[in-house]
């Protein structure tokens, strides 16, 4: 049986077009990776500088497949009970209280400690069954009937143990809940993992994934993204904005502006009704795309020169 992803993404071009329809401009390599991931049923590990659209890619894919996006944000100390499942302790407690009389009844009917124990054993599993299970993102993703897009965001922020724990899910799409057994995926989800490279991920995890590196986009691609994301912007302003940002990226900065910052800046310029870039305007809006005081100094020095280059 063909999965939903395979049906919709019949070729690399369709992936590109579908993503474009939901306002995500991908390059060919990204489209191919998504296409391959659908075909090979493998997770994608997306790396790249902050703000180039790693998370967006997963969102856009979910949008064009019209599947739910289940997101798991990783952080230090994230563990199974928050990622996979948890027992509803409160509900268990409440039910035991409510059923107290019933249980007394069951137990007292038997004569002797052993029979009572045996009787109890017949019932105790009911408190560890599906109705008392609180599924967390990973389990939810496996239970989705039509499949879903599972986004495991910033995997590098989680601990090594959690990473190791993910391996079973990523390679076999199944998890073990000790009290219930192994849960298989109904339809295999399409998995995206993103990482900002704050630490090296383990070989085992990388081996199970397709690896996509998203760099800063080329000028042409970035212009297209700006036009798509900020539709009101005029052709020549988009041109200037992109040129300016591309030049800024070549400077020696602590944090270079990425696409999301370019988009923000373009939006701000639209709100200010700017027609064209001029040094004063750039200096006033510098803090939109430069996030460090030191960097502001570096760029402010060269604003004249950079603006002149961008305008021409």
């Amino acid at each position, binding site marked *: 049986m063909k999965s939903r992803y395979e049906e919709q993404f019949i070729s*690399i071009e369709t992936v590109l077009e579908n993503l474009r329809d939901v306002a995500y401009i991908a390059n*060919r*390599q990204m489209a*191919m*990776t998504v*296409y*391959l991931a659908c*075909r*090979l049923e*493998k997770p994608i*590990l997306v*790396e790249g500088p902050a703000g180039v659209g790693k998370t967006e890619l997963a969102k856009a894919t979910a949008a064009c497949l019209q599947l739910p996006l289940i997101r798991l944000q990783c952080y230090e100390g994230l563990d199974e009970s928050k990622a996979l499942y948890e027992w509803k*302790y409160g509900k*268990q*407690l409440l039910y*035991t209280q409510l059923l107290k009389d019933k249980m007394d009844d069951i137990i007292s009917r038997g004569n002797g400690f052993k029979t009572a124990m045996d009787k109890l054993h017949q019932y105790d599993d009911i408190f560890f069954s599906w109705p008392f299970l609180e599924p967390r993102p990973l389990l939810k993703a496996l239970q989705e009937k039509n499949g879903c897009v599972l986004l495991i965001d910033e995997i590098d922020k989680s*601990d*090594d*143990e959690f990473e190791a724990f993910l391996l079973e899910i990523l390679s076999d799409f199944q998890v073990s809940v000790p009290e219930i057994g192994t849960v298989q995926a109904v339809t295999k989800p399409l998995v995206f993992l993103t990482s900002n490279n704050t630490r090296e991920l383990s*070989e085992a995890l*990388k*081996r*199970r*994934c*397709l*690896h*996509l*590196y998203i760099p800063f986009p080329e000028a042409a691609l970035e212009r297209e993204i700006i036009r798509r994301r900020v539709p009101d912007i005029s052709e020549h302003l988009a041109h200037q904005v992109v040129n300016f940002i591309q030049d800024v990226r070549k400077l020696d900065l602590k944090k270079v502006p990425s696409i999301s910052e370019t988009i923000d800046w373009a939006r701000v310029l639209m709100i200010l009704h700017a027609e064209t870039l001029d040094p004063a305007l750039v200096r006033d809006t510098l803090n939109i795309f430069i996030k460090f005081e030191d960097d502001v100094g570096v760029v402010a020095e060269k604003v004249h020169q950079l603006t002149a280059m961008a305008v021409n």
Partner: protein
Amino acid sequence: MERVLEDFVTAARTAGVRISISETLDAVRAVKVVGYRDRALLKDALAVSLAKTAGEKTILEDCFERFFAFRLFAAAPDRACKDAAMPSPSLVQTKSSLVRLLMEEDRAGLIGAMTEAARLENISQIKYFTQRSLFALRILARMGAGGLDGQIQALGRIDTPAAAAEKARLESAKAYLVDNVRNYVQSQYDLFARNEGERRLESELRLVKLSNLEQRYFARIHNIIQRMVKRLNDLHSRRRKAARRGVLDFKRTLRENISYQGMLFAPSWKRKKIERPQIVVICDISRSVLRTVRFLLLFLYGLNQEIAKIRTFVFCTNLVEVSDILGNSPVDEALARIQGGTDIPLIMGRTDYERSFGDFRRDHLAAVTRKTTVLVLGDARNNYNDPHPENLRAIYERCKRLIWLNPEVPAFWGSGDSEIGHYKPYYTMIKECNTLEHIERLISALVRR
């Protein structure tokens, strides 16, 4: 076509990309999906499934360009006698397929014949540069160069201008062929074996005596150390976290579940408080030991996230603490400063173990506690002075263990002015320490529990 991919994977591995078998299988499946038609697409598919870091991607792309380069047989053969009249076909009765390919300048045919011959000769097994001519010869033989030679000789025996022209033509074609096969073998050698030498050098460097090491290898050694340190860090940080988990802490469980009317819902587990090793290093930095000290310190200071506290003392004639200098600047720079002795009261005279251990006992004994491991690095050559082992004994009795690292080979221990015999009762163990391998083993024993 899978054979081609296999060779490509071998080439990429040689270039330094780590590729596992499961990744190779992924690549095969990926290539089946995207096909061989579109070169850029093929490259991307391989990059996505084989290379797992940005750095590896660049290597892989470079490797791809070289592996799938078809610049062979590009330039047409140098035809000195182009204007010579075409020889009458009767002169050459039996044209072998090779001769025909050459005469018709069938590039694709020539490349096909050559790569097929190379494949049969297992070119991907090439290891050393001395094998290049051998492989070239074998490939030529498989392509039928023997027949070509025979024909040239046969033409040499016929004494007509037409035959001479034909002979010249064949000879230039042969030169062209040999040239291309040589280039091909060279490019294959680059692909499959170029890094082999590096790898060999690296494994040698791990075993070579640090005191004999040449200055030009220092950068490489630093790289190796960094990798070793990283491996140790990965290994032990994981093991440490997983240690001692899963024993039920009954008292705490009772306390914490009071809010559930005493029902034991949320069990809590015992965790052992993890103590990181504390280390005090006492190094002899006289000239005979300095190299070893340098690499040991590089190692130790790379590990600092593993080791909570490390204090370093150096001595020659007297002993000083240099933890601050080492903590604040890179090891190389720090060592230069220590040796220069500009801002520390270190006397670089004759090595004096008696005075140095005495200094330590007097000023720094408080640094050693029951949790401390003391590393003493030195050859114990005391220039025939009284060794006074009771100073070392005072340190030994306070610490968890005292490890003596001796940069000399065991045969020399105790010979001449070496006082190692006198110190013997006061160390937990002694180890020979003069190669990277020794240092690595030592450190991994230190951080292991």
